[in-house]
């Protein structure tokens, strides 16, 4: 993705929609959406979404960039792929929602940056990159404290009992976090992923 997505400057401005069609993963098929409602109706968390995929897609066409990128629909998707298998136009709804979430964080939308999912993803990546695995203590710690020191401390205390039970049943270790063996290989994989992302940012598609 080269640029920041454009804001509508006049009524019936297709600029944002075109940008999504061209830059968001699966966006090229979004142009085929016929607003049938199958996706939103199939969604197990549909009632927990402010708009749901169908309406969100209409809002993209309507150029409502700010509302789209601060929508909780991007974050509440649980990647069940019900919508994708049923969409009569084969729109890859799930990919589109996830990539729009990335756009929303990158462009600094408060609702996105502060969303549980975005902060959890950051904590997950932190652990995964450093140790090659997700260590519960690191992921939860990072996640809890991402809301601030006192909030993190309080959350940690609230969950102490669960943590102890996990330790007792050997679901959580006590020593130093273990690193995986092939960390070098993991680095190669992640570097490659970053390289691909850079290429995408340069406007190119594919792998």
């Amino acid at each position: 993705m080269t640029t920041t997505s454009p804001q509508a400057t006049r009524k019936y401005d297709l600029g944002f929609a075109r940008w999504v069609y061209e830059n968001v993963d699966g966006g090229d098929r979004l142009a085929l959406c016929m607003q049938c409602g199958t996706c939103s109706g199939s969604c197990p968390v549909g009632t927990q979404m402010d708009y749901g995929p169908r309406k969100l897609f209409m809002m993209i066409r309507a150029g409502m960039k700010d509302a789209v990128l601060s929508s909780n629909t991007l974050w509440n998707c649980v990647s069940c792929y019900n919508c994708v298998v049923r969409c009569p136009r084969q729109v890859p709804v799930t990919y589109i929602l996830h990539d729009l979430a990335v756009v929303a964080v990158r462009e600094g939308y408060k609702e996105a940056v502060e969303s549980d999912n975005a902060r959890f993803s950051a904590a997950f990546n932190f652990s995964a990159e450093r140790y090659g695995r997700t260590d519960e203590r690191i992921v939860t710690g990072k996640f809890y404290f991402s809301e601030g020191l006192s909030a993190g401390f309080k959350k940690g205390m609230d969950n102490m009992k669960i943590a102890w039970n996990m330790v007792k049943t050997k679901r959580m270790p006590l020593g130093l976090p273990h690193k995986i063996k092939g960390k070098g290989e993991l680095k190669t994989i992640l570097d490659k992923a970053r390289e691909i992302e850079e290429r995408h940012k340069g406007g190119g598609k594919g792998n």
Partner: protein
Amino acid sequence: MSDQQPRSQTILVVGGGISGVTAALEAAEAGYETVLLEAGPSLGGRVAQLNRYFPKLCHPTCGLEINYQRIRKNPRVKVFTMAQVDGVSGERGNYSVTVKTSPRYVNANCTACGACAEASETKVADPFDYGLGETTAAHLPHEMAFPMRYVIDPSVIGTPEAQKIKDACKYDAIDLEETEQTFDLQVGAIVWATGWRPYDPANLTNYNHASLPDVVNNVEMERLAAHDGPTGGRITRPSDGTEAKRVAMIQCAGSRDLNHLPYCSRICCLASMKHAAYVREQYADAQVDIYYIDIRAHDKLEAFYNKLKVDPQVSWIKSKPSAIEAGPDGRPVVKGENTITREIYAAPYDLVVLATGMEPSVAGEHLPVNTGQDEYSFVVPAQPAEEGVAAAGVASGPLDVSMSTQSATAAALKAIQAVAGPAR
């Protein structure tokens, strides 16, 4: 082909539905010998299985009976039922066609007195009712059969029951020794009018047609409403036979869907509106909900739509339902998102009708004639005048009856041009 070679001016029509019958008659009435082949035991095709047909809601008897009169009066039309094309060779003006007939076990002596059916005990699923009802092994294909002649289901052949059936016939019309036959025809042109079949609702796994008895498709709905159907024309729930008063129509069930039939079947919107009219006529307190992506009532058919739209007991819900599931009381529950209100609904019904589309009956088959088929298997003759092959009715694309007969008349003319035009 040179001018010296023999040229047949006979026109073969394959498929005896409304389109094939029309094409054969139009060609015959223009003075050409025609042969009409029908795979089933009677002419009429899917139209005979409709309760009534839009736009005027007339009974299919009227349209079909007029055509049967025309056939009876016209010695140029030869009809073969239980007959299919086995192979074709040659070219325009000079086709040699191998026809294969399956045994009917009943010959032309039959007076349709029905004594054989009375002697028949075995029940078989009635194909005319799409298996919703049963019939006896010896049966009349349907009330308006042409020829008006009984047929015996092969499952009883070789059993004592078959002999009992034979003995019951006073006219020596039953021939239990009949076997599959083949014969050859010389024809100059061929009209392909093999029609359609309903898209298989089993493919729409989220609509549970197979597991929920009160979810039917639109061809079954025609039979539920027909006076000669399994319920005697009372629209009831297949599960318990009670009146179906809360009824949902699900449009585009498998049509306009890249996972199923990518095209619009064109007639299902009108068919569902007709079904809503059937229900409303039977029950003053009925409520019908039509779930749609957008309503496609083209040309003059919009009048039908406008008439139904003012009925306060017919609701229009802009939504493609995501699923149909069994509710706690066993009734089918339609689920989805209303795209106007954004409400996520789950509505229970007595009966749900899936508006499944029309798929060419030759889908997935390789035609024995030299002609093209489009990506959906509809028959599109490459150069009809040159090849001597034309297509009529739903074999050529999703059409209603009036469009089918227009296309059949056009196909008859193309066939005439092929046999009467200058040799190549």
